[in-house]
């Protein structure tokens, strides 16, 4: 009995829908490819770029191999620095910890800068059920928050939205002029709108890019300055991080900060790279260390190294499938190739479609600044999902028939004689042209008058 989901969101279906708006799809593809090109230009300015990637990869390997020790070392130093350290086994506990801190301070007003971890834990939705509003302050995050949508990209949350749509959203929520869509005008409106939120916020939540075991501090990178604006004005700073974000030493930041922004947007560094070691006078600083499946993931031999990810988004920008299917088609907090190998660690059934949303072209692995073998893991996940029976039965049956034919020279030749062998064998291909997914936008190959084998027998006769 197949354990495959019958009614979940399916990448292929969502992608087909995304592609119906060709103009938007073309724009999306070009915008992300432009980012990939900026990344290339920037990487090529560093002669030892590949050595830098290799070094980053080795540091991260070392982190994962000693993660328990680094976590303890980090905690000890952070406590000495006056940071409150919390441990959350899962998303629910993370949300409860944050809620408790908020309640201890009489709720008040909250701002949050970008944190994929809080997206993963669905913190905003949870706090909403408690009647607590939280304002996302990264412009892209604020746009999707107003649109009541999840981000579609980890670095460019609203990359799926056109400026006219943002204009309409801002007209409704921020009172900008109807029909106005100039990005500079809309950004200024968001600046004014969010400036007031910063000045009145009591609690600021941020993510964490890197946490340093040796010093007990952490680094948060932004271009907008929203994380800093939030935390420096609020009485309480809550930083949330996955346990894999630890690095051993401060000197390793040199490696990672050189790679992060260049891989993400092609900038040599983000505008702000802020290092927090102690709360400012009168401020309270909390740090929540979140497991949420990571410690189990660490034990999966073929998959643990995806925990090296520094969330730069380079694999997403370069992915030819992502660019043409949009982030929401991945139905997970992290989209694109890296999301497709992280998500099944969380739930194989729910995300069984994602490792198949790839041609295995391998571009993702080549741009990855920490050298995660993303495309190999996509392949490997497919094996696991098939073995665990999370692949639809029709597909499985088709493959079994194909395997039988292809492992028998006789059956192969017989089937070949009836023409269009491969086309018939490919699962999901119907004889009916209208239902044949190949033929919707492509002609079928024309069968030649003889196979190569037939030709060879005639032209290179040998005793058999």
């Amino acid at each position, binding site marked *: 009995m197949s354990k495959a989901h019958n009614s979940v969101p399916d*990448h*292929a279906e969502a*992608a*087909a829908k995304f592609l119906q708006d060709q103009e938007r799809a073309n724009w999306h593809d070009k915008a992300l*490819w432009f980012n990939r090109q900026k990344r*290339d230009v920037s*990487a*090529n300015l560093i*002669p030892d770029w*590949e050595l830098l990637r290799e070094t980053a990869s080795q540091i991260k390997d070392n982190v994962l191999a000693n993660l328990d020790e680094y976590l303890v070392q980090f905690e000890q130093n952070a406590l000495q620095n006056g940071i409150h350290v919390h441990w959350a086994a899962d998303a629910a506990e993370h949300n409860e910890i944050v809620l408790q801190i908020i309640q201890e301070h009489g709720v008040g007003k909250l701002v949050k800068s970008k944190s994929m971890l809080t997206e993963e834990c669905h913190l905003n939705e949870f706090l909403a059920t408690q009647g607590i509003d939280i304002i996302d302050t990264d412009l892209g995050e604020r746009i999707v928050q107003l649109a009541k949508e999840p981000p579609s990209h980890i670095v460019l949350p609203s990359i799926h939205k056109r400026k006219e749509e943002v204009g309409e959203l801002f007209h409704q929520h921020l009172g900008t002029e109807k029909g106005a869509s100039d990005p500079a005008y809309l950004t200024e409106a968001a600046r004014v709108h969010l400036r007031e939120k910063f000045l009145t916020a009591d609690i600021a939540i941020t993510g964490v890019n890197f946490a340093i075991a040796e010093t007990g501090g952490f680094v948060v990178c932004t271009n907008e300055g929203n994380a800093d604006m939030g935390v420096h004005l609020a009485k309480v700073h809550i930083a949330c991080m996955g346990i894999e974000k630890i690095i051993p030493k401060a000197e390793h930041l040199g490696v990672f900060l050189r790679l992060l922004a260049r891989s993400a947007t092609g900038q040599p560094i983000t505008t702000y790279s802020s290092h927090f070691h102690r709360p400012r006078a009168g401020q309270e600083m909390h740090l929540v260390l979140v497991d949420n499946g990571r410690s189990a993931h660490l034990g999966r031999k073929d998959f643990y190294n995806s925990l090296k990810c520094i969330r730069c988004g380079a694999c997403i920008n*370069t992915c030819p*499938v992502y660019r*043409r299917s949009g982030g929401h088609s991945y139905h997970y907090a992290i989209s694109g190739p890296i999301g497709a190998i992280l998500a099944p660690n969380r739930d194989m059934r729910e995300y069984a479609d994602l*490792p*198949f*949303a790839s*041609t*295995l*072209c*391998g*571009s993702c*692995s*080549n*741009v990855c600044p920490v050298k995660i073998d993303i495309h190999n893991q996509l*392949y490997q996940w*497919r*094996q*696991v999902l*098939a073995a665990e029976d999370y*692949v639809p039965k029709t*597909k*499985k049956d088709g*493959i*079994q028939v*194909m*395997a*039988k034919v292809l*492992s*028998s*020279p006789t059956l*192969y030749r017989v089937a070949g004689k009836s023409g269009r*062998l*491969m086309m018939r*064998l*490919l*699962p999901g291909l119907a004889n009916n042209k209208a239902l044949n*997914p*190949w033929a*919707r*936008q*492509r002609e*079928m*190959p024309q*069968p030649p008058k003889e*196979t*190569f*084998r037939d*030709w*060879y027998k005639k032209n*290179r006769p040998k005793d058999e």
Partner: protein
Amino acid sequence: MKVGLFIPCYIDQFYPQVAVATLQLLEKFGLDVEYPMQQTCCGQPMANSGFGAASAGCDTLFVQNFAAYDYIVAPSGSCVLHIKEHLHVDKDPEAVSHIRNRIYELCEFLTDVVQVKELVANFPHKVGFHIGCHGQRGLHLAQMSELVAPDFSKPGYLLGLVQGIELIELSRKDECCGFGGTFCVSEAAVSAKMGQDRVQDHVEHGAEYITGTDTSCLMHLEGILRRQKRPVKVVHIAEILNGQYE
């Protein structure tokens, strides 16, 4: 030196001219080339769909067909990469490792083993070269645009030996065409869109022909070209290098 010619199933069935060109080309260099008659498929369609275990029959058959050759050569980067990375037969690890080490994609065999310095071939056309991802990023037939590393291209070197050919520049020199094995039907919409964009890049740069190292990519691009009724044709690199393309 005995060379076993491995012809992927879809080439055998749909593009025999590619196999003929490959054979003739290898023979021109005085090589003793043989096509083992009981071969079928490398097993990749099953494995890439998650059913690596279901390709055990193909693996056994492959070893039976090819273990005896000094080299195994195929006009397909993708199938060669699959054998190199995934061929597995429990009871015959020696034969498996021999095959994995001795299997070559046609172009790399010509540049690295035969060390071809000249070719008798003329192809006076504007040609776009689409490199298959598995050949490029898996077998390193050419430098990858993502890396900060010196440029090279084995197929590009060989095409440079052809008279009259004019290779066009593409805007995205190594973007995937979207074939992707069973991806081409399981994600038909994205696959077709990728193919259309790949075709567009060639058309915009004035290609009369699209050539490549993988017939699977070319079959997909040809399907799109024909649907769009474009005059651009696809031709496998073996056909150009063999110099007898009609």
